[in-house]
């Protein structure tokens, strides 16, 4: 067992090191990346994928670990992105040096995510199961409406919000610095991964996992699952806000699309595609989904597709149609997701059954 832990840690460290070095290397994978790995286009795409992976990890905390099917997680991502934009525009105390203002703004944003999630969670967690899903969906919809209404001219309405760079360090601004933004995204992903790992191994993590399995039993032992669930909900919200803040920096702006319930559905697709209940599954699903989405969009605009008859052209020119269909197929035929697939070929039966069991257990709620 111990030697396996050592191998896992070494392999993870090597992978992270490879990811750190990627902007300095010249690797071309045609069909997957738009160009060699040192070009801003590829780095931007990879950074985007990593932030979505961080967001998916925070969602894994809710759905995979605690078994809470939330349809409102996009709200906290949007709170991070919009929150940082609004804080950076309005918060400039003279007694803080410029760099510190930036760091404090990020901390405030993460705190906003945590507080907002705790508030939303305190109401939604009064119900469980499908009602919980619908209530979180309603909150996300309300958030989406607020963002589009443009209250006080702060969110920019349909146009979205543009990043005010006056307090952002120069190293994180502009296309030439995409490399730094890539490293920032990687740092966010690693941070979120470690926090998720820590939460999973903590007492609170064990309690919510136990509640997922059998809530009655947890209550009988004398633990009230409500507050522990609320804590996990808050932490997931804070992590999503962190990913959202980095997203704002990467895109130098944010559009109301990230606040829509559809964005949460995408997140759900990612987590299930990767494999429910597995941290690696969430990361893998996010990267596969983002790359597929990007390549399919490129494919949709290609000459090859435009030349096809309508019957083939229309479905193939809609990336979301292909991804949605792929998702349905995964749910129907591949219950463990992509991560379950890799495990299944290595060690037959056990992991895939485990994935299936987890799905069954979650269903009880």
């Amino acid at each position, binding site marked *: 067992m111990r030697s396996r832990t050592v191998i896992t840690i070494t392999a993870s460290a090597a992978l992270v090191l490879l990811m750190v070095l990627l902007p300095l290397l010249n690797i071309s994978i045609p069909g997957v990346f738009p160009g060699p790995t040192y070009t801003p286009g590829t780095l931007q795409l990879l950074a985007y994928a990593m932030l979505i992976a961080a967001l998916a990890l925070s969602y894994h905390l809710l759905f995979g670990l605690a078994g809470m099917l939330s349809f409102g997680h996009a709200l906290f991502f949007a709170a991070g992105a919009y929150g940082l934009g609004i804080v950076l525009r309005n918060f400039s105390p003279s007694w803080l040096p410029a760099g510190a203002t930036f760091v404090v703004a990020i901390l405030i944003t993460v705190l906003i995510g945590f507080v907002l999630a705790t508030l939303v969670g305190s109401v939604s967690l009064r119900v469980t199961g499908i*009602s919980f899903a*619908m209530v979180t969906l309603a909150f996300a919809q309300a958030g989406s409406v*607020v963002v589009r209404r443009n209250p006080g001219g702060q969110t920019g309405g349909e146009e979205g919000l543009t990043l005010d760079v006056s307090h952002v360090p120069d190293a994180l601004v502009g296309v030439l610095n995409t490399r730094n933004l890539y490293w920032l995204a990687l740092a966010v992903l690693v941070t979120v991964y470690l926090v998720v790992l820590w939460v999973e191994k903590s007492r609170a993590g064990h309690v919510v996992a136990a509640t997922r399995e059998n809530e009655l039993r947890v209550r009988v032992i004398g633990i009230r699952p409500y507050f522990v669930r609320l804590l996990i909900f808050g932490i997931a919200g804070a992590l999503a806000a962190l990913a959202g803040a980095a997203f704002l920096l990467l895109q130098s702006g944010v559009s109301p699309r990230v606040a829509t319930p559809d964005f949460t*559905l995408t997140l759900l697709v990612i987590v299930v595609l990767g494999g429910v209940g597995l941290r690696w599954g969430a990361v893998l699903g996010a990267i596969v989904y983002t790359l597929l989405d990007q390549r399919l969009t490129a494919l949709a605009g290609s000459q090859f597709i435009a030349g096809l008859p309508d019957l083939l052209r229309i479905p193939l020119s809609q*990336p979301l149609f292909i991804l949605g269909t792929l998702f349905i197929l995964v749910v*129907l035929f591949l219950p463990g997701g992509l991560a379950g697939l890799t495990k299944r070929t290595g060690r037959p039966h056990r992991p895939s059954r485990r994935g299936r069991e987890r*799905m069954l257990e979650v269903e009880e709620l």
Partner: protein
Amino acid sequence: MSTIVLLLITGFGLGALYFLVASGLSLIYGLMGVLNFAHGSFLTIGAFIGWEVARRLSDGSWWALAAAMLTGAVVGAIVAAATEFFLIRRLYNRHIEQVLVTVGLALASVALFEGIWGTDPTYVTSPSWLGQTSEILGARIPNNRFMLIVVAMLVLVAIVLFLKFTRYGLIIRAGVENRLMVTALGIDVRRAFTLVFAIGGAAAGLGGVLASIYYGYVSAHIGGSLLIFAFIVTVIGGLGSLAGAAIASVLVAVLQQFANFYLGGTGDLAVVLALAAVLLLRPRGLLGAKA
């Protein structure tokens, strides 16, 4: 006074639309425990096909509208029944996966609709009377609201009669109460599943044609936006309760209209607050069964 009458009746009209979506959702959830995210797509496909039919027949006449409504209902029923038969049934008793499949279907179908009919709204022409207004107690009310209310009430009566006086209605009512018992008595509940989906799909497809008249256009997202309010309605009304869905539809829509008018367009937020209040005071909804 006239403003209040106007808001009330337009609220009832919007509530009628919500009810057409929520009734199916509530029945499906009550019987099968499936939260159907694809329900909005049943509505959208009904609206699009209904519009295509009306356009080909003769634009803007009453019988073209009737044909559109009939087609919308039939298409909604067929698509819904097919969804149940090919996708939901395979995942029998695995509720989360059933929800996931409907989520995938909703995403894929909206993308497909955008591919076929474009991303811009398609404007529809309806009989000219529906575009005019009538005066009631000094309020000028758009005529299409009356049609919405009448159709929704007919649908409500039809569903209630079906549930009360037919054999399958009995099986469905019994299944909502206790599915295991019905199965134990040797009755194949699965046929009732397909039927409930078909009924819900028909109501949604009909709702789609009516929604296209209410809004004046059809778009690929028309179902998705109504679906969220229908979810809220089903939770407030109590999951699985048809009467609850009917009452909550009207309450939610009227509240939305009043908040939009008197509180500066905050209707959507008022509805979410109402939902939060209901959950805090009565988590099972207005007429929901005890959890």
